[in-house]
């Protein structure tokens, strides 16, 4: 028997760009009905193409939007109009969950903040996914992904001691905020089932990111002293590193976890200096790790990274060549993480799926909606509005 964990859960999604839309995509994958509220005058511009950039397939939305917002429905409301705001509030009255990631005061100005909506629908679960949260001295600070990668400490926890800060060159912080938000919503739904009460989930993306560095922060807080950046080394294995290989920007990672793996590695390298007895134990290898890195790299930089990957693995030494996205796409993991979406109106498109294997889960990939594709059906189903009433609203400009 297959199950749909969030079957029948209605999510009214005012979020845009990535953190919020990634959060609601996860919820859609667990079976929730996600209604994306857009505006024809100010559409979600995520992934907008640069002038002159051309792509195949659907042209109504950029490829990144199609990926982030698949499996959702779209309605258009002009929240600048009284009538548009009223429809939004009525939809929220029959929603289970509202998600928004505007800056602090926006939803309040629209009369769509938690106090306004929960007065009508006390069972509502309301997720605000702002940069810093809606309380505290920096609640009005504005931020984007890179700001929070920087502020959370991640960029100065990554890379070599003394070197410049290092970011992960994707929207890492949005993913951290989005997935914490999804977890918070499902837990709040479970709580509501027991208590009958909704919840105001004031999630701070900043705190989500900081939490993923919680142990490091704990060390700094208790010792009141900086922890040296370890680069690619670790406290309990040596040698461990990413070593240069032959060719342009080619690298291979290897980790020696056991004395046996060390024996295998030094046999492969065959350098007399590696025969020193003190290197047979982890303490000796830790103490000599700088020199070991030099000797290992002198060996790896003459070798092809793919061949080296195989040679090391065959010798029992944990290793992996550094793959780029083109290589990653050929992995079995990518076949599962990036399934192909079938849409009669589009080319076959690889999209991000839910990267878990759960046989009992009924989950279906559906194409991202066209702008306002579901306005009529949602207003009909949720609010019981007739086509004539919807047409009136449209004439008033509420549905732009």
């Amino acid at each position, binding site marked *: 028997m297959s199950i749909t*964990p969030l079957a029948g859960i209605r999510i009214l999604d005012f979020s845009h760009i990535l953190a919020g839309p990634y959060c609601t995509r996860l919820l859609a994958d667990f079976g929730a009905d996600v209604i994306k509220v857009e505006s024809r005058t100010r559409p979600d511009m995520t992934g907008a193409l640069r002038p002159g950039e051309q792509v195949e397939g659907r042209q109504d939305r950029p490829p990144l939007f199609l990926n982030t917002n698949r499996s959702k429905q779209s309605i258009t409301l002009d929240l600048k109009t009284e009538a548009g705001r009223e429809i939004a509030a009525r939809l929220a009255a029959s929603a289970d969950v509202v998600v928004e990631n505007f800056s602090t005061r926006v939803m309040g100005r629209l009369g769509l903040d938690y106090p306004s909506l929960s007065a009508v629908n006390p069972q509502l679960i309301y997720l605000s996914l702002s940069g810093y949260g809606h309380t505290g001295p920096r609640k009005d600070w504005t931020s984007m992904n890179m700001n929070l990668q920087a502020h959370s400490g991640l960029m100065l926890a990554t890379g070599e001691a003394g070197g410049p800060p290092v970011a992960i060159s994707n929207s890492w912080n949005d993913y951290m905020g989005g997935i914490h938000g999804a977890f918070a919503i499902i837990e709040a739904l479970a709580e509501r089932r027991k208590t009958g009460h909704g919840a105001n989930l004031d999630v701070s993306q900043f705190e989500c990111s900081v939490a993923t560095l919680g142990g490091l922060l704990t060390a700094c807080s208790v010792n009141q002293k900086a922890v040296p950046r370890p680069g690619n080394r670790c406290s309990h294995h040596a040698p461990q590193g990413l070593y240069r290989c032959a060719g342009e920007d080619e690298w291979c990672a290897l980790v020696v976890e056991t004395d046996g793996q060390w024996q295998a590695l030094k046999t492969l390298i065959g350098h007399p200096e590696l025969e020193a007895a003190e290197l047979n134990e982890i303490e000796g290898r830790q103490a000599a790790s700088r020199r070991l890195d030099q000797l290992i790299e002198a060996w790896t930089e003459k070798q092809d990274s793919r061949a080296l990957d195989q040679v090391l693995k065959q010798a029992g030494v944990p290793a992996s060549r550094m793959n780029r996205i083109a290589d990653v796409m050929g992995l079995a993991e990518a076949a599962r993480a990036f399934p192909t979406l079938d849409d009669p109106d589009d080319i076959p498109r690889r999209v991000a799926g839910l990267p878990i294997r759960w046989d009992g889960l009924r989950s279906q990939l559906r194409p991202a909606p066209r702008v306002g594709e579901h306005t009529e059906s949602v207003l009909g189903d949720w609010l019981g509005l007739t086509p004539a009433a919807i047409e009136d609203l449209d004439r008033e400009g509420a549905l732009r």
Partner: protein
Amino acid sequence: MARVLDLTTETGAYAARLLVEAGHDVVRIEPPQGDSLRRRGPFLEGAPPLEASADHHFLNAGKRSLTLDLTVEAGRQILLRLVEAADLVVANLPLPIKVNDLMQARPGLIFIGIEGDGHELCTAARTGILSITGQPGERPSVPGAHVIQAVVALHVATTASAALYAKDQTAQGQKIIVSEAECLVAMMEQAMVTWTTTGKSTERKGYRGAVTAVSGAFACADGYWMLSVPPSGDGWSRFVEWMGDPRLGQDGALGSEASRNAEKENILETIDRWSASQRKLDLVTQGQGRHIPATPVNTPLELTNDPQLIGRGFLRDVDHPLLGTMRLPVGAIAALRGAAPVRAPVLGEHSREILCELGYSDEERRSLMETGTV
């Protein structure tokens, strides 16, 4: 409140920690010599060996600790008794007991197994994460503080939450596998979209932004600050007014994101020169005053005095029987719920209590402890 058994090693520990923050009862099952997390640095100064790992203090906070030797039959029998009363087991695979034995011990059990070899650096290399982390042309770096393990754990926690919520939809047990490598490949989705639609490979950009044209860390007198100019809206004109450099404002030639992308290197160099002699906090305060996303590039040590983290109750004082009062992060979900701060258990701290709950007599308990099973 669900009853959760935590059989994870390093990768999954944050998943069970999130379930603690959400109010569930989590028992961490450790080998009698303590788990590997307790041996991972950085360490708290002055703490006894198995109670010193900072990651242990954060990731195991609020869990109950039971030591159990799963290499012997008696230990596995106790585990099965625990499973009989549990709703959810999260574990790193492989386990010293068959997963099907666990599923049989408790009809309707939710089991989430984490698959992967736990070699963080190798997994980062394989999945492409290293290819987008580091200075261009230089040696790539694994993301710090084990944040890629947190990604896997977040997928586990969210899936656990969904499976628990769906418990009344089926009487059947649910066996779910989360693969470390698949979760990290999934973090490459932006690079995947770019590659499959334009054929361009996303490469590492160091401290500069990957998506927005004018985005990156810039050196200043006392470290680095981070600036992102929003690609749309009037952020750019507000920034130009702030900087007051006529070369950037001329004729509105850089008014669009596309034109800024074309002139990116020039713009970034101009900002570098402008901010080099200014102080981080001044730049950030002035920028935020103009609603421009400007923030400090913090060291983790600087964060321990962050007014927002303290003001929101994310950093709170916690008492520990061996270590005294410590100011610790309570976690994003706990902060949200206003939950009382909790501390990590001493090794085996709750073994006796948990055996009592399972109905073992005093005599049985003593014998299990003497033989080293517990």
